[in-house]
């Protein structure tokens, strides 16, 4: 019986895009679900002081959340340091780091998981919709993870990666765990010193202001505004017109014979 994988879920103190209120980030919730689906033992890891919103993540199934006090100055170093420190699990080193696609409420660049992976020297696979442990493991060999990456229009790409690794979770991952108030209430938020040495990197000074909604470029529509209308055609003519139209749009493949 394989022992449970030791997974760390990176958590951010997100805000809700609609209301601007503190709220957990959807892909990070899915990251918890993904770790659960793998049967992993989980610790939540947050670079920053304990925030009430982190409790909400606990409601989705994280019993143990570690907050790296002071880690917000250099989150990459703080997170990587904590992951490598061995302080998160008594049983052994961290094998898997899960993160959302991007945070919501800060710079939201989606860069952090990559930077953490780079710092750890671990491979990083993004946009993961599904994960499972690869079967037929050699004894002693580092186990592999079979991942499924989400691609546009519902396409999927299989990827196999060796542990330890960093996994970014996509919005379409179906593994949203249930929110349980009793778990959120009971969760333990541990503050750990972040153990940063040396000065934090100088942040690039970017001007920040309220978001302005700007028009998107529109795809050139077909000539004329109204569509073509066939009133009461024969069913066969209607069918032909629809099929031809769908072919012209490229959504229906051409007939098998041609």
């Amino acid at each position, binding site marked *: 019986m394989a022992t449970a994988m030791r997974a760390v879920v990176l958590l951010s103190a997100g805000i809700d895009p609609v209301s*601007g209120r503190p709220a957990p980030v959807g892909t990070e919730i899915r990251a918890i679900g993904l770790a659960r689906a793998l049967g992993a033992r989980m610790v939540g890891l947050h670079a920053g002081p304990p925030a009430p919103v982190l409790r909400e993540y606990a409601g989705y199934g994280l019993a143990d959340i570690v907050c790296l006090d002071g880690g917000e100055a250099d989150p990459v170093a703080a997170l990587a340091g904590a992951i490598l420190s061995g302080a998160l699990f008594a049983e052994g080193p961290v094998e898997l780091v899960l993160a959302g696609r991007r945070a919501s409420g800060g710079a939201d660049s989606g860069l952090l998981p990559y930077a953490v992976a780079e710092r750890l020297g671990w491979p990083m696979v993004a946009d993961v919709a599904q994960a499972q442990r690869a079967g037929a493991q050699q004894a002693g060999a580092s186990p592999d993870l079979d991942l499924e990456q989400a691609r546009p229009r519902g396409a999927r790409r299989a990827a196999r990666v060796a542990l330890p690794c960093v996994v970014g979770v996509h919005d379409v991952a179906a593994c949203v765990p249930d929110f349980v108030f009793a778990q959120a209430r009971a969760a333990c938020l541990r503050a750990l010193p972040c153990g940063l040495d040396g000065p934090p990197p100088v942040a690039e000074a970017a001007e920040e*202001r309220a978001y302005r909604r700007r028009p998107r470029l529109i*795809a050139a529509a077909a000539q004329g505004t109204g569509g*073509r209308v066939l009133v009461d055609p024969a069913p066969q003519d209607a*069918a032909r017109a*629809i099929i031809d139209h769908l072919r012209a749009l490229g*959504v229906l*493949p051409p007939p*098998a014979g041609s």
Partner: protein
Amino acid sequence: MTGRPRRDPRAERAARQVGAGARPRFDLAQPPGGAGIGSSGRLRRDPRAEHARLLVPGGDRPRLARGGGAGIGAARAAAPAPAVRVVRVDDPACLVVAVPDLPDGRLDRLDRQVLGAARVLADAASGAVVLLGGAGMPDLGDAGPAGADRLALVDLAADDPDARAAIVCAALAALSPRHVLFPDSDDGADLARRVAARTGRGLMTGVEVLTARQAIRPCRAGRCEQVSAPPALLTLAADRVAPYAGAVREARPLAVDPPPAPPMAGRIRASAPRAADPATMTLAEAPFVVAAGNGVTDFALFRSVVAGLHATPGASRVVCDAGSMPRAAQVGASGTVLDAVCYLAFGIAGAPQHLQGLGRVEHVVAVNTDLHAAMVARAGLSVIADAQRVMPAIRDALAAEGG
């Protein structure tokens, strides 16, 4: 500086503006070449050819190619522009590298916008745009029209994103460009972040406004925006910067030093993407949705038509309420909001709640008995007929083709 044509991006942008409303809207396909712009010494363009370049053949209604979908534009007409002047940049002051996704080896819609954005930055600095792509791309003939001065083709590892990033980093180190632009697509964003993490340089992701002087991107859950000078590395959000529509560029092949073998290759083994099964994929991701409403009574027939069309089944609320289709199939504000290319509605009048579910759908086809239904007004093709009679005809027509 010798006789190099000068362009006026402002004027070109203005020429693409549609209407005179308070909110500017831009027409991608309309070439800038309006009456007020042409002055002596300016480039001459062939708007017809440029329009044709974007056209997808077939059908009675012209449709402009848009990126992403496999199969779309598979037979795009290789309409070479009539020989106009090809613009050369022989001695660029700097390089701006665009790293397009090139799905199926071709520039897609966002790729062209990335090249357009690269053009903006290059032109401001008298630089050249370098298209960095994979070797062995079959159809990069439109790199020049899309704005590439140089074509740097390197052997990009397709199945290992780690290795791919290492190769791109090596190529960039060889080119030492001033700016590198990636599309903010799934693949482009992944590559850009890997490159940024590997090189330790800052990355500005999801840029929505890009001019020679500034770049703007949303942050803080889309409630704020960051403004800065155009950064060294950026990813460009979709449909924010117009593709290049000026004269054809040279697209001169550029030899790049062969990249070193990536040290950590083999950690990730990715296979080729496989298209989803339309019958089972989630509605929100489906490219082609066929939905049933009140006008459909025979759901076995409906399902066979959906299967025949290789589409994903959807339904109106009433149909789901009645239990004829599962709730997961419900389209609308209280169901799923679609992101499809095409939506074919059988017997759906189009209640406001339902139409909200068609938010980003580009093409709607309606089969409805009511000529004045809201769905008909939204549709590009409407058939005013009983869906129950049209569906068997479609099934039979598809069966006849297949047999």
